[in-house]
C-alpha cells in the first residue's frame, strides 16, 4: 500500500486552470457514462438473479453501486472535491465489489457483480491521474478479476487486457488534452502581453518621434550649430520611422517576406521616399530578397550617377498576379546606348545586377529615361496562393 501511495503522488493531478477545465469536461461526460453503466449493471444483475447464492448480499451490492454512482456524480462535479481520498474510495469500492463476487455468486462465476460498472472508477483515474493512473487502476481491476477465477477463459483475459490498455490510452489522451489546453492558454496570454507591449512601444515611439521632429524643426529655424543638430535629429527620426514601419508589417513566416516592411527600411533622410500599399505584400523569401537587392542596386545607381543626396522615389504596387516596383530619380538620365556599350565591353554593372536578377525571377526590368529623370520598372509575377 505504501508503494501504491508513492506512485499516486508521481501521477499528479492537473494544476493549471485550463487543465482543470478540460478535466471538468471529462468528468461531466463520465457522469453520463456512470448512469448508463449503473443501469446496465442493475439490469444484468436482475436478469441473472438466479445465479446468486446469496440474493440478499447481491441486492446490497447492487444498492451500493447505485448509491455510489449518485454520490460520485455529485462529488466529481466540483474540482475541489476530486481528492485522492475520493478516487481511492471509488476504485476501492469497484475492487471490493469484484472481490465479493465469488462469495455472493459462488466460486465458478462468469460475470462479476459490477461488470462494466468498474469502468467508471477506471476512467475517473485516467481523467484525474492520466496515463499512470489509468494504467494503475486497469492493472488493479484486471489483476483482482483474474485472480478470483478458478479458470481463466479467453474472454476473461480479453476483458482484463482491454481494461489495462483502455485505462492507459484514455489516461494518455486526457493528459494530452490538458497539456494542449494549457499550452493554448499560455499562447493566448503571450499574445495578449505582446499586443500590450506593442501598444506601449507605439506610445513611446510616437513620443520619441515627436521630439526628434521638433528638434529638427527648431534647429533648422535657429540655424548655426543647432541646424546641424536639427539635421541629425531629422535623420534619426526618419530611420526610426522606417524601422517602426518595417516592424509593424505582417509577422513574416520563414518562407515569406513582407515587401512593404522591407522597402520601408530603404527610406533615407531627405532623399529616398518609399510609397507602398497599407497592407502587407508577402512574397516568397528568395523572390523578395532578389527584388530588394535589385531595388538597392537601382538606388545605388542614383547615388553614383545623380548625387549622394539626390532624391529618389520607390513605388510598390501589388496586383493579384504580379508586383510592380518603380524606382525613379530626377537626374539627367542615362545616355542612350550606354548600358549596351557597358555590356559589350564586359562591364555588366547595371544590366547584370538589375535586369539579371529580375529576369531570373521570370519578370521584366524596363528602363525609361528622359527629361523627367530615370525610372526603372521592375515587374515580377507572384506565385499562386499568395495573400495580396
Amino acid at each position, binding site marked *: 500500500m505504501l508503494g501504491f501511495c508513492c506512485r499516486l503522488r508521481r501521477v499528479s493531478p492537473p494544476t493549471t486552470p485550463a487543465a482543470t477545465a478540460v478535466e471538468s469536461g471529462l468528468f461531466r461526460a463520465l457522469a453520463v457514462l456512470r448512469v448508463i453503466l449503473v443501469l446496465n449493471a442493475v439490469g444484468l444483475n436482475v436478469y441473472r438473479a438466479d445465479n446468486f447464492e446469496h440474493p440478499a448480499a447481491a441486492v446490497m451490492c447492487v444498492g451500493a453501486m447505485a448509491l455510489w454512482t449518485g454520490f460520485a456524480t455529485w462529488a466529481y462535479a466540483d474540482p475541489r472535491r476530486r481528492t485522492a481520498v475520493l478516487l481511492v474510495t471509488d476504485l476501492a469500492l469497484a475492487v471490493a465489489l469484484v472481490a465479493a463476487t465469488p462469495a455472493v455468486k459462488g466460486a465458478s462465476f462468469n460475470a462479476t457483480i459490477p461488470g462494466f460498472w468498474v469502468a467508471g472508477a477506471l476512467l475517473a483515474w485516467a481523467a484525474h491521474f492520466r496515463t499512470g493512473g489509468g494504467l494503475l487502476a486497469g492493472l488493479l481491476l484486471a489483476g483482482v478479476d483474474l485472480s478470483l477465477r478458478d479458470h481463466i477463459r479467453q474472454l476473461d483475459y480479453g476483458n482484463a487486457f482491454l481494461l489495462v490498455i483502455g485505462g492507459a490510452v484514455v489516461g494518455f489522451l486526457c493528459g494530452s488534452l490538458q497539456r494542449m489546453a494549457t499550452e493554448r492558454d499560455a499562447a493566448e496570454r503571450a499574445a495578449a502581453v505582446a499586443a500590450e507591449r506593442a501598444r506601449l512601444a*507605439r*506610445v513611446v*515611439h*510616437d*513620443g520619441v*518621434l*515627436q521630439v526628434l*521632429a*521638433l528638434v*529638427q*524643426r*527648431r534647429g*533648422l*529655424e535657429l540655424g548655426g550649430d543647432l541646424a546641424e543638430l536639427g539635421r541629425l535629429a*531629422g535623420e534619426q*527620426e*526618419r530611420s526610426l*520611422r522606417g524601422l*517602426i*514601419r518595417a516592424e*509593424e508589417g505582417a509577422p513574416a513566416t520563414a518562407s515569406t517576406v513582407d515587401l*512593404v516592411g522591407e522597402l520601408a527600411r530603404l527610406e533615407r533622410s531627405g532623399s529616398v*521616399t*518609399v*510609397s*507602398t*500599399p*497599407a*497592407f502587407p505584400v508577402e512574397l516568397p523569401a528568395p523572390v523578395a530578397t532578389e527584388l530588394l537587392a535589385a531595388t538597392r542596386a537601382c538606388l545605388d545607381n542614383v547615388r553614383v550617377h545623380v548625387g549622394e543626396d539626390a*532624391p*529618389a*522615389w520607390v*513605388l*510598390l*504596387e*501589388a*496586383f*493579384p498576379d504580379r508586383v510592380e516596383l*518603380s524606382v*525613379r530619380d*530626377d537626374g539627367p538620365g542615362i545616355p542612350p546606348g550606354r548600358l549596351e556599350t557597358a555590356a559589350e565591353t564586359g562591364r555588366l554593372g547595371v544590366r547584370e545586377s538589375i535586369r539579371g536578377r529580375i529576369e531570373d525571377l521570370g519578370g521584366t526590368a524596363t528602363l525609361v529615361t528622359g527629361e*523627367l529623370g530615370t*525610372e526603372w520598372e521592375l515587374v515580377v509575377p507572384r506565385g499562386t496562393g499568395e495573400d*495580396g
Partner: protein
Amino acid sequence: MEPIRVMVVDDHPMWRDAVERDLVAAGLDVVAVAADGRSAIARFTATRPDVVVLDLQIPEPDGVGVTAEIVRQDPSVRVLILSASGEQQDVLAAVKAGAAGYLVKSASSQELLAAVRRVAQGEPVFTPGLAGLVLGEFQRISEAPAEPDDQRLTERETEVLRMVAKGLSYRQIADRLVLSHRTVQNHVQNTLRKLQMHNRVELTRYAIERGLDEE
C-alpha cells in the same frame, strides 16, 4: 481677404505651440487649440475653423475618430493630418474618413504653411507616400467583386495618382500628359472623393448588415 481660420490639435504642448506660432507668424488666424479628441470636437463645434491641423496619436477619440466626427458636422472643413509616426493604416483611415491631406511632422514650417493654404483652397495635399497608400487601397477595392464603376478609378486617374506616388509634381505631370495644371488637380481630387465615397458606402453597408443581424 479674410485670414484662414485654423484649429491645431496635438497632445504635445511644444508641438502645438510651435505649429501655432508658425501659423500666426504667417498671418493665419489660430482660433482654437486642443490636446485631445474630446476637446477637439467640442472646440470645433464652437469655433468652426476652415482648417484643422490634426495629430493622429491623441487621447480618445483618436485622430481618425475626430476626422470622421468633424467632417460629419461640417463637410466643408479641411482636415490636414500632421503625424509623427506616419502609421500607414491610421493615415489611410483618416483620409478615408475625410481628411484632405497628410504631412509628416518632419516637414519644414514652409511646407506646413503651403499645405495649410492648399487644403484651405480645397486642394488635397498628396505626398507620394499617401498616393501609394491610396493606389493600394483602390487596387484592394477593385479585387472585391461587384463594386459599382463610379467607385473605381478611371485609367487617367490611376495614371495621375501613380505619377504623384513616383514623386512627380503636378506641373511635371501636366507637362508629361499634356494636361492643364487644373485638370491634374481635379484628377487627384477625384481619387480622394471616390475613396471617401467608397468608405461611406462601406460603412452604410456594414451598418445595414449589423442592423439586419440584430433583428
